[in-house]
Structure formats: structure tokens, C-alpha cells
């Protein structure tokens, strides 16, 4: 099971340059809206054509600009779950699910019935898409693209059309249902949570270009690149100057960090995830390294945590540099010992060194 | 802004009214001639320019259509000074309604009824009665076109009207009939000799036999409501002059 994608396509305002490989795992494409994610899927599906490059699925060449191969979408055996599901409104649930099957009437009915049971759609066979709920529509759409056992299943922002309170439940359901499918899964989303939850590998794209790809958990933990850090949700990023292999001056925050790990020469930014800071009391703060004495600018209350907007007390003239964000569990914050001042320590493994 | 617009509109209105009245001044040297379609070519091309040369101060406006339509228009009060129809019928009808000036009717011209075919025609037609050999025939609608009335009259007297009327395409004016034959769409057609003379795309097969059709008289008369009866008379006199007669004959008319 493998998918190789290496394509270029000129688009309005930017050019798409995507390259990645998968090996049977679920892979996600993460990027902002308009960064070219949907176009990438459409190129793989064959409904759009890249300007150059190649797309190979399980050893079968779907597209190769040099060899002038460009298979019609009908011949690519790919399943594509559209963002708005694209269910045929004039066909019943049954007819929608079975439409891709080239079998006799009886065989088709049998397979469709199987799917209906597996996807918990009993009783809805003769209903039309506008008569069923959003979650049911999604299951029908998913059943429709799995039933003919495609080599690759692509999901385009599968959860963005759903109400947020349903998302959780539906995400679990879909995860279960996907177990019924044997092949590659490629998912596109702008939601970090979804990608993190579903995909073992991730491709991060920014303005049409692949920024990074690899193991999801690893990339989220250590984004390595500035743009990757932003896309994976790191809120605290500052310019930096490398002073020595183990110390670096964090320009925007006015502190010097000392690191256990060696700092590569080409590091230009330092990042820290908002959840990773450690609160210290005054006594300990004096002895530890990599501690900031903070001036709190604002505290924003969320449902289960506080977001503390702060800056280094020592810095004056911020000149438009953003606050440091510290996200902390409400209980933890309310029960803190040191209430006079705020001392935050940056643990060594929380320091993100970014190119 | 609104005030300026209003002022502008008032000025325009005044000008148009003034313009109208100054038109009546000009009306005194313009006459409107309503004539049958078959007279268009000889009037527009030669005779009217000739008249204008002789009388540069008299302007002539013309309108051409089937005599029946013109009759209707005059009945409805159209501003016409001189009426030239292609048959006595329309002139008489207007005269009976008192719409023609006393004693102004002159039986000016005579036109012949002829059978024509397209010059590319392959069918062998030599007599008027050979019209039966044609598959498609074009004639004017007898109910509204004088040329059509004459055609019906001639064919009836020859005993072939019933048969012909079954396959005839009825034109609403004689020019339409002529064009149908010129294009070859109709194998044969019945028009005036003047029509046949006006285009090289058709040739005359035969005239309607002597006695089979009443004479086609083209009368001219002055409409009673005309404000320019003197000028109208000048025009009619001109049409009866020798030089005018020569022109008419060159176009296929016979003059009295």
C-alpha cells in the first residue's frame, strides 16, 4: 500500500508544489484554508490535472507528465469523500450507496444491505439526502466511497460541516467505520485536532508548498521549521540569536536560554508551546535557569483553562511584539502558591528550535 | 440639479412645439405621395428626381405599400396629399367615402398582368395557361392585393382558378410574390409587367389573354383633406407630361 505524490500546478496567486509518500498509514494534509489542500486531492483524484509531476498509487501510475500518462478519474479507483458529501439529491440512500457497483441487481442489493447494516443506516434506505441528518449523510457518503474497495480513500475536511457538539461523537464513529476499509487513507483538514487524532503521518503545507512531512506526533512536538510550528499551533515564537552551542538569546522575550541539547547554527527562531511552561515559586525561581519573571497583561478565561497573556518584566518598548501565552488548567492556576509574582520556567524539552 | 433638469425639459418641449409650427410653414412646400408598391421604382428612381429638378421648392415624401393598406391608412386619416393606387377599386372606395377631391381622379397608366418564371427555370412554360404545369405558384392574396385580384380574375375566366388556388402561395404584397419567383422558390408567379421589368432574375412567359382580365388602370387622385391641393395638382400634371410618359413606358407601363 503506497502513494507517491510529487506535483506542481500553477494556481491563482501561488504555485502548488506538493511532494510526499505514504506507506499504508493514515496520512493527513494540514494547512490553512486556501493553501491548496483541496486542489491536491482533486489532482490525485484526476478531476484536476497538475502541470507537471507524477502520482503513483500502489505501483500504478495515475499521472506522469513526462510519460504523458493521465488516467481519467473513472479509472483511478479512488474514493473521495467531499466536504459537502456530494450525495446525489435525486437518489435515495440505497441508490447513492450502490451507484459505483457494476454488479447484477441481486449482488448489488446484497452489498448495499451489508453497508447499510455496517453503517447503522437501517430504515433510511428509501430516504433522500435532504430527509436525513448531517451525520447520517456523512455515513452514506462514506459508505458510497468504500463499497467498491478503492485503493485510496480521500477525505476532504470531513468534519468541518458538522456541529461542534456532534463532532466528537462522529469522529469516533468514523474512526470505527474506517476500520472496515482496508486501503490508504488521506485526510485533508485545517484542524490540528482532527489531524492529530486521525493521522499517523502528516504533510504540512503553506501557500501551496510542502513545508514538512513525517510522523504526526513527532512533528507536532518538534516542528523544526518556523512555518510548521505556526501551522501546528505553537503560539509563542520569537526570533533568536545563537550565542554558543548551548545558549541562545531569545530576542523578543529578552532572555537567554541555556540548553542541554546542542543548538544547530541555522536556528532562527525559538518556540514554546503555551501549555509547556512551569510555574515556580520565588525561592526556586532564583536558582533555576531559563526562568522568566512575568508581567501579566491580561487573563482570558476559557471553559476549562486560563490563557495568561504576559511578557518579561525586564523588557520595555515592546514595539508590537506579541505577548507570551501561557495556557494553564483553571484549578492549577487558582491553587498556585506563588500569588505575588509569576515565575515561568521553560523546561529543556519544551524548547523548540526552529529554522 | 433637479431644477436644471426641469428647465432643460421645458426648453426642449418649447422647441419641439416651435419646431412643429415651423414644420407647417415648411409643409406648404412638401407633399406626401402614397403610391402602390409597383410604382416605387419608376417614381423614386427617375420621376420624382425629375420633378424636384423642375420644382426645387416642392419637397416630395413618399410611402409605398399595397393599395389596400394605403386605402386603410387614408381612411384612418393619414396625412397624404396624392394617392396613386394600382387599381380603380381602392380609389373608387375612397371616392365614395368622399375622401378624394372632386374631379381630381385621372386614369393615368395601364399595367399588364403577366405570368413569370425564374430565369433559371427549367420547366417548359409558353402560354399563360401553362401555369398549371408549375408545382408551386405565387400570386398576391386576392383579398388584399390588387395584382392578386387580377390574377384571380384571369384564372377564373380561364376556368383554372380552383386548381391554382389550391397550390398557390399568397403574398401580402406583389413584391413578395416577385421575390418568391426570383429566388426560384415558386416555379411561377403572376405579377404586373412592371414588376417583371424591374428585375433580371425573372422572365415573362406570357401576358394574360386579351379579355380574360379587366384593364389594370392606375388612377391618381388628390386626397380631399390635403392642405396642398395646388402643389398636388402640379405633381399630377407633371405625371401626365410627355417626358413622364416616356419614363413610364420604359418601366413597362402603357399610358393613356
Amino acid at each position, binding site marked *: 500500500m503506497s502513494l507517491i505524490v510529487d506535483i506542481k500546478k500553477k494556481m491563482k496567486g501561488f504555485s502548488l508544489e506538493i511532494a510526499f509518500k505514504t506507506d499504508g498509514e493514515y496520512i493527513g494534509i494540514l494547512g490553512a484554508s486556501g493553501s491548496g489542500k483541496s486542489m491536491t486531492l482533486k489532482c490525485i*483524484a484526476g478531476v484536476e490535472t497538475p502541470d507537471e509531476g507524477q502520482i503513483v498509487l500502489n505501483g500504478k501510475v495515475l499521472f506522469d507528465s513526462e510519460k504523458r500518462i493521465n488516467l481519467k478519474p473513472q479509472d483511478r479507483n479512488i474514493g473521495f469523500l467531499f466536504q459537502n458529501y456530494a450525495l446525489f439529491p435525486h437518489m435515495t440512500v440505497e441508490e447513492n450507496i450502490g451507484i459505483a457497483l457494476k454488479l447484477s441487481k441481486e449482488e448489488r442489493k446484497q452489498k448495499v444491505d451489508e453497508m447499510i447494516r455496517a453503517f447503522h443506516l437501517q430504515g433510511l434506505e428509501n430516504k433522500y439526502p435532504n430527509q436525513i441528518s448531517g451525520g447520517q449523510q456523512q455515513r452514506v457518503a462514506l459508505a458510497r466511497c468504500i463499497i467498491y474497495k478503492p485503493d485510496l480513500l480521500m477525505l476532504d475536511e470531513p468534519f468541518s460541516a458538522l456541529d461542534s457538539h456532534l463532532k466528537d461523537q462522529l469522529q469516533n464513529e468514523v474512526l470505527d467505520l474506517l476500520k472496515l476499509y482496508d486501503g490508504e487513507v488521506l485526510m485533508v483538514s485545517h484542524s490540528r485536532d482532527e489531524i492529530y487524532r486521525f493521522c499517523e503521518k502528516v504533510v504540512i503545507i503553506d501557500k501551496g508548498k510542502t513545508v514538512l512531512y513525517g510522523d504526526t506526533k513527532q512533528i507536532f512536538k518538534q516542528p523544526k521549521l518556523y512555518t510548521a510550528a505556526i501551522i501546528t499551533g505553537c503560539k509563542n515564537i520569537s526570533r533568536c540569536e545563537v550565542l554558543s552551542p548551548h545558549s541562545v538569546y531569545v530576542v523578543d522575550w529578552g532572555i537567554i536560554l541555556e540548553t542541554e541539547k546542542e543548538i544547530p547554527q541555522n536556528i532562527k527562531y525559538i518556540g514554546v508551546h503555551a501549555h509547556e511552561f512551569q510555574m515556580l515559586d520565588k525561592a526556586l525561581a532564583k536558582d533555576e535557569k531559563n526562568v522568566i519573571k512575568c508581567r501579566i497583561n491580561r487573563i482570558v478565561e476559557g471553559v476549562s483553562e486560563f490563557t495568561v497573556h504576559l511578557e518579561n518584566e525586564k523588557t520595555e518598548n515592546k514595539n508590537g511584539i506579541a505577548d507570551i501565552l501561557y495556557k494553564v488548567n483553571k484549578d492549577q492556576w487558582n491553587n498556585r502558591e506563588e500569588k505575588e509574582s509569576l515565575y515561568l520556567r521553560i523546561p529543556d524539552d519544551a524548547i523548540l528550535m526552529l529554522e | 440639479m433637479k431644477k436644471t433638469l426641469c428647465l432643460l425639459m421645458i426648453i426642449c418641449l418649447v422647441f419641439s412645439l416651435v419646431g412643429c409650427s415651423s414644420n407647417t410653414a415648411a409643409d406648404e412646400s412638401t407633399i406626401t405621395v402614397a403610391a402602390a408598391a409597383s410604382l416605387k421604382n419608376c417614381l423614386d428612381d427617375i420621376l420624382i428626381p425629375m420633378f424636384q429638378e423642375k420644382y426645387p421648392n416642392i419637397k416630395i415624401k413618399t410611402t409605398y405599400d399595397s393599395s389596400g393598406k394605403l386605402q386603410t391608412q387614408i381612411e384612418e386619416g393619414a396625412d397624404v396629399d396624392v394617392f396613386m393606387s394600382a387599381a380603380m377599386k381602392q380609389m373608387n372606395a375612397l371616392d365614395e367615402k368622399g375622401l378624394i377631391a372632386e374631379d381630381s381622379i385621372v386614369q393615368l397608366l395601364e399595367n399588364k398582368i403577366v405570368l413569370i418564371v425564374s430565369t433559371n427555370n427549367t420547366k417548359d412554360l409558353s402560354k399563360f395557361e401553362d401555369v398549371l404545369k408549375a408545382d408551386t405558384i405565387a400570386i398576391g*392574396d386576392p383579398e388584399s392585393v390588387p395584382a392578386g385580384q387580377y390574377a384571380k380574375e384571369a384564372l377564373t375566366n380561364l376556368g383554372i382558378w380552383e386548381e391554382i388556388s389550391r397550390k398557390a402561395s399568397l403574398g401580402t404584397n406583389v413584391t413578395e410574390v416577385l421575390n418568391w419567383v426570383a*429566388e426560384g422558390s415558386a416555379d411561377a408567379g403572376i405579377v404586373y409587367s412592371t414588376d417583371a421589368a424591374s428585375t433580371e432574375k425573372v422572365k415573362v412567359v406570357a401576358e394574360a389573354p386579351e379579355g380574360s382580365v379587366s384593364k389594370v388602370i392606375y388612377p391618381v387622385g388628390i386626397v380631399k383633406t390635403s392642405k396642398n391641393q395646388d402643389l398636388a395638382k402640379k405633381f399630377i400634371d407633371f405625371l401626365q407630361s410627355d417626358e413622364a410618359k416616356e419614363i413610364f413606358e420604359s418601366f413597362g407601363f402603357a399610358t393613356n
Partner: protein
Amino acid sequence: MQISPIIISMKTASAAIVLTFMLGIFVARWVVEMKSERAKMVLDGIFTLPLVLPPTVMGFLLLIVLGVNRPVGKFLLQFLGIKIVFSWTATVIAAVVISFPLMYRSARSAFEQVDPNLIMAAKTLGLSDNRIFWTITMPLALPGVAGGGILAFARGLGEFGATAMIAGNIANETRTLPLAIYSEVAAGNMQTASSYVIIVLLISFIVVALTNYFSMKERKYLK
């Protein structure tokens, strides 16, 4: 009033709508599926032309093609013995040419309003382009297409200028309702003309009512 013009008009309009319907859908599909934007624009202009040109101009153009003294017409007559002008067929041709743009534009607009995602989904599901057109595009575009058909029928029914030129005005053969009305008015038979006009008004009204019915018809699967 004679019944012949009514019958001829209904025959002509019916034959014309069958041809126009098929032609309009076929051509609209062709243009919609075309890849080159420039070609689309040029073709669209050509196919819309009869709508904006006066019918007499269309009649003139048809005459140049079909007239027996013109190249094509001459060929047809000499080698195939076919003379189209002044035949009932000519009334149908005039009606088809005049009403075609209406059908084409309605069909094209209806096809383009079908959600493109549905077409893409159908392709990825393996449906052939033909199957997609007949089982997805057409059913969803049907109200627009049917509405266009009805309008085209009415337009073909009312065709006059081009018909007179190429089909002539032959009683019981090519005298359609519009031609009959015009003749009767020219002859001063207002009563007869009025009777014909009422028939035309009636048919037109039914046509408009049907168009509205179709475009507003509730279909189960749409909210």
C-alpha cells in the same frame, strides 16, 4: 375561420420542438463539456445569434442556403430532387432555427447550475461521462430544460418572418397561424383575424402557465 392554419401550426410546432429539444440538449452538452474557454465563447455567440437577429434576416440567411438558385439548394434539387423551399418542411426548419437559441440557452444554463461537486463525485465513483450526463446532470437539470423546451415550442409556434420567406403562404400546406393572421388583417377581415389571435393567445397562456408550473414544481428530494 378555417381550422387548417391551426392544424398546420400545431404540426409544425410539434415537429420543430422535437428537433429543437434534441438539438438544443446535444449542443448545450457539447459546449458545457468543452475545455477551451475561447471556443466556448465563440460557439455560444453563434448559437445565440438567431435570438437577436430579426426573423427576416434569419429568413434571408436560410434562403441563401436553401434557395433553389443558390448553391446548396441547387445541389439538393438537381441531385436529390429535393426542394425544401415552399414546402411544409421549410416551416419546420424556420421554426427550429428561430427557437433553437432559446432551447440551447435554457439547457446550457440548467446544466451549468448542477453542482460541479456532484459531477466530480460521480467521476471518482467510476461513472462514465455519458452515464453521468443521463443519470445525474439531466434529471437535476430537467426543470430548466423542460422550461426551455416549452418556451422554444411557443417561439416556434409564433414564427412568422422567416417562415413567409422560405415556406411561402400556401393554404393547407404552409399557412401557419401567424401567416393566416397577417393575411386576414391585410385583407381587412378583422373578425377572422381575431379568432385566430384568440387561439394563439390561448395556446401562449397555457405555455406560460406550464412553464411556471414546471419551474416551481416541488420535488420530493429538494427542500
